[in-house]
């Protein structure tokens, strides 16, 4: 980011390559339609570079990118009248030499996606940022515009609900 600010135009492309795939995964799990993901990722980075002065180095760059992505997704939901897309596919199933284990993982993955659809938006986003993205609560709080304590509470509610749904 500093390289870009110093005038290196190519640094923008490098930042997209570094964080783009993770952002895409997050957007997909948070309910974006598969066909929208590339556009949403592009829009997220475009807004991030244009609004660089708003970042001021508070929180991590990733947290800030997820915040922009989450806001864009919210706008998209409004345009789609609240419909979210959580497609049931095999993107989350890792290659395995254990067919039985793979089947269980596949079933759990599908059930998890279905469970995520039933969570309130904030719980879903906090769960994904913590579990799928591995962010700390401070960065999650920055990403969802909340406090670390509140993010922790949302996370525990989300996990409890998902455990019930998957039981």
């Amino acid at each position, binding site marked *: 980011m500093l390289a870009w600010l110093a*005038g290196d*135009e190519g640094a923008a492309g490098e930042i997209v*390559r570094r964080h783009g795939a993770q952002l*895409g*995964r997050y957007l*997909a799990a948070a309910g974006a339609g598969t066909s929208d993901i590339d556009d949403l*990722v*592009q829009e997220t980075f475009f807004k991030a570079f244009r609004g660089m002065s708003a970042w001021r180095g508070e929180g991590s760059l990733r947290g800030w990118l997820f915040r922009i992505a989450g806001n864009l997704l919210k706008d998209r939901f409004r345009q789609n009248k609240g419909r979210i897309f959580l497609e049931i596919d095999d*993107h989350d199933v890792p290659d395995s030499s254990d067919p039985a284990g793979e089947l269980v993982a596949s079933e759990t993955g599908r059930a998890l996606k279905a469970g995520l659809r039933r969570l309130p938006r904030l719980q879903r986003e906090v769960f994904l940022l913590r579990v799928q993205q*591995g962010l700390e609560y401070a960065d999650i709080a920055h990403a969802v515009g909340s406090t670390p304590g509140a993010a922790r509470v949302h996370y525990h509610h989300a996990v409890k609900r998902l455990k019930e749904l998957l039981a």
Partner: protein
Amino acid sequence: MNDCEVLRDRMPEVAHGGDPWTVAEAAHLAACESCAAEWPVIKQGAMLYADLPIAVDVVAERVVRQLRAAGARPSVIGRIGWRTAMIGLTAVAATVALLLRPTPARRPIPDIAMDTAALGVLPELQGLNQSELQAVMQTLPSGNTDTVTSAVPHLDDLTDTELEQLLRSEGGE
């Protein structure tokens, strides 16, 4: 935090390939029904859409092109404008020049106690503070400094005979 809370807090880290479970944690996970039910949720959650195809190279190229088309200049000077940058630089240069300007040497504040010691006059005054010294000075008649210094005789006051005696004594004759 109890064992369950510690373990649950660690689950995302372990699911992302961080430090594996310790023996104690693994034992707790095997024995605790609630933690055992949570672990697959977290493990699977960490893998969600892991294989989602994202054309990051294409997206990166599009972002750079979009930024260029929008006139989003990456450099700080580009964003704030040359005129603002020049004003800022001029202000910085002026500040640096002011800071580096040699300052005139300050006249030392006269120290009454030191002066009296140097003159060897009234050494008992050295123990007094400033207000006490002022009180003493007020009791003296005006022109008292002359009185003090006039205690040392001037050459003009000597007669010719006294002068000759003095020169003889200084010259060792």
